[in-house]
């Protein structure tokens, strides 16, 4: 068992396992889909650094210039920390599997098997990306994720979900094409398909930048962020839960692996963290609030990738790990409410603490964790990133004080939009007379496990620190850290309740960058339709309907006209009266239209024409 798993790609456990799902009876299926990611977890655990030779596929040597595809990343011997990349992959592998196990416990009652199949392939794709050692393997799993996640959205089976899934696919096709173009260029210029870190100082090229752009589309960086709050809340309760964990986090993983130290990412991350908060504050739909909050959280991780120091990379890994746990917990709480109440708008929710107390408690633990309240996993993970920013700022990168300040401000804002706003408007605020039942047992079980993890990793983060790519010498629990964090959060809470009247929810949506393809594109179509098609219509009217028939009738009747004009004196000389002349003229026109002149006339006319030409040429000589 251990030797088998030591070099078996965990992605295949889920992808191959997914094939069986539709054939299993419902009862067994629910257990099976829980067991499958658990098996993948064991697989990740037993993976060995040196046992990977079997999965270096050399069937594609013609494509890869003689290099084998690496389905399992190995250590990079030349690097300063040869194990770092591998440990990074493993850390993400663990959390991807762990989260899947608990998500499927939550989804125990899901009846349709299509969603499970899509979800398992999707999670398998994420594992494939995490362990891919070369760019081509990475790309294949990347696209596999895009395709399967579209089916997870479609599984909701509503018209809105279908439309949203279509937009989702278009954006991800766009991102995938950028990635592919970048990969092709990069392989050309580097002469290798290997996926290691790209160096910011020496390896900037069209190829690496295109790869970066492709990744940033998946990381939900504005202006390519709108697909996330557009599509995830349209997925089903469990679909949204599963989607929330993987696409953006594989993008973060890829950034940490390939783009550590790319400075622009620092500022991109800062923008994301604030953008997420502003939009979450404007939002009314609870699952959309959580979707924007993903962008905010991923902002911290992207920023850390940009800082690129060992502490920052480890911090981002820890943060991704904990984020997946508490964000899943929040999606579960929101999902349980949606499942029981059938509503997800803050304006229609409220007062649920009376009948869903357990969901409230678990959701609140998630909300506290995302806000990095001391004692929760957010506090022991996110603060490493802030600490790394502080450290770099104090050691020569003075501009990072701004990044640090924005991250601290964003930390305060997290408490505002996710920490308080979500539980307050859903469970407290105004009693709307809703008296739903408490969430089902399986949902509560899943939430309880995640709540436990949130607190456990908050109190005892060492097991998590041990699996991080670089050793962290960081202790979150100093008096200073704890007190300043509590200050920050308490005052944020104060602001929330002081400004509560200003935060009253309205039943509105907010325009995001998706306006450009949802409204802008139809508008563009309309404008081009009006402008270009009116030119088209005018042209038709003027030339096709006007000029051409005139020209045509001119050329059809001109010879007859000229002939009759020439013949009139002859007819006059012959002494024909006007009625006879008219008759002759009609004959002439008839013949002209059909082009049928007696040969005699044709011959005479030809002679006349030759004569005219002769005279003409004689004059112009």
């Amino acid at each position: 068992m251990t030797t088998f798993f030591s070099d078996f790609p965990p992605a295949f456990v889920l992808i191959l396992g997914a094939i069986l799902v539709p054939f299993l009876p419902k009862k067994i299926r629910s257990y099976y889909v829980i067991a499958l990611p658990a098996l993948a977890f064991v697989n990740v655990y037993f993976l060995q650094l040196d046992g990977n030779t079997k999965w270096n596929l050399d069937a594609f040597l013609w494509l890869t210039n003689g290099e084998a595809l690496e389905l399992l990343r190995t250590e990079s011997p030349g690097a300063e920390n040869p194990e770092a990349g591998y440990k990074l992959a493993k850390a993400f592998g663990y959390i991807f599997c762990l989260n899947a196990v608990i998500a499927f416990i939550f989804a125990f009652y899901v009846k349709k098997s299509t969603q499970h199949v899509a979800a398992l392939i999707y999670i398998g794709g994420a594992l494939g990306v995490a362990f891919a050692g070369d760019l081509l393997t990475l790309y294949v799993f990347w696209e596999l994720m895009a395709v399967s996640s579209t089916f997870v959205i479609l599984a909701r089976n509503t018209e809105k979900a279908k439309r949203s899934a279509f937009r989702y696919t278009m954006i991800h096709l766009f991102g995938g094409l950028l990635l592919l173009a970048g990969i092709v260029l990069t392989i050309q210029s580097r002469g290798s398909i290997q996926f290691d870190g790209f160096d910011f100082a020496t390896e900037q090229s069209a190829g690496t930048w295109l790869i970066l752009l492709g990744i940033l589309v998946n990381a939900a960086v504005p202006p390519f962020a709108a697909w996330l709050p557009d599509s995830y809340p349209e997925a089903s309760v469990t679909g949204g839960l599963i989607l929330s964990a993987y696409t953006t986090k594989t993008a973060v993983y890829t950034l940490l692996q390939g783009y550590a130290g790319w400075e622009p990412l620092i500022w991109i991350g800062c923008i994301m963290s604030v953008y997420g908060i502003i939009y979450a504050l404007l939002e009314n739909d609870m699952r959309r609030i959580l979707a924007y909050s993903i962008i905010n959280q991923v902002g911290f991780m992207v920023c850390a990738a940009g800082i690129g120091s060992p502490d920052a990379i480890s911090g981002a890994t820890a943060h991704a790990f904990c984020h997946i746990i508490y964000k899943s917990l929040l999606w579960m709480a929101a999902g349980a409410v949606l499942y029981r109440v059938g509503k997800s708008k803050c304006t229609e929710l409220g007062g649920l603490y009376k009948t869903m107390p357990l969901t409230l408690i678990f959701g609140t633990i998630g909300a506290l964790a995302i806000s990095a309240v001391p004692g929760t996993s957010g506090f022991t993970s996110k603060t490493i990133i802030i600490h790394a920013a502080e450290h770099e700022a104090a050691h020569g990168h003075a501009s990072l004080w701004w990044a640090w300040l924005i991250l601290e401000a964003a930390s305060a804002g997290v408490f505002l939009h996710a920490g308080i706003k979500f539980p307050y408007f859903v469970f407290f605020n105004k009693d709307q007379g809703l008296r739903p039942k408490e969430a089902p047992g399986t949902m509560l079980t899943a939430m309880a496990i995640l709540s436990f993890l949130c607190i456990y990793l908050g109190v005892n983060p060492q097991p998590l620190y041990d699996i991080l790519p670089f050793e962290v010498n960081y202790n979150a629990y100093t008096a200073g850290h704890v007190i300043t964090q509590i200050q920050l959060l308490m005052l944020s809470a104060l602001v929330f309740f002081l400004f509560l009247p200003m935060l009253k929810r309205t039943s509105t949506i907010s325009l995001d960058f998706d306006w450009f393809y949802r409204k802008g594109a139809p508008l563009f179509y309309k404008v081009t339709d009006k402008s270009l098609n009116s030119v088209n219509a005018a042209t038709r009217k003027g030339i096709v309907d006007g000029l051409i028939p005139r020209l045509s009738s001119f050329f059809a009747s001109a010879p007859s006209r000229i002939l009759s004009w020439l013949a009139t004196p002859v007819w006059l000389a012959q002494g024909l009266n006007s009625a006879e002349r008219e008759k002759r003229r009609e004959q002439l026109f008839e013949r002209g239209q059909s082009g049928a002149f007696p040969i005699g006339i044709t011959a005479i006319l030809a002679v006349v024409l030759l004569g005219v030409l002769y005279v003409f040429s004689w004059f112009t000589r």
Partner: protein
Amino acid sequence: MENGDDKGPREFDWFDRPKSRKLLWRILIAACLISFLVEIPVLISHDRHAAAPIDFGKFNIPGFYAVLGFVACTLMILVAKGLGIFLKRKENYYGEPEEETLPEDIDDDVLL
């Protein structure tokens, strides 16, 4: 949430009562003050960032994080409010079909 919902909410309306809301407000303000006061001895003992090997000279101002939190949150709310004027639209702005939000994938007893 800091305002006491881990007191084990049961089927009662404690949080809806004006009296309890008043109490929660007091707890919140007290917590803000305490977090500020507790910092002072720590600042004096220079232990604030004991784990970080950096001199935080310029940020060793009592209540720096409190002010940061207050100002940042106020700004973000105001910015969001201001942007809302331009960005908020009616729910059917994109002409999406109006649908029930009930999830269809769980064949359990769905309320409402």
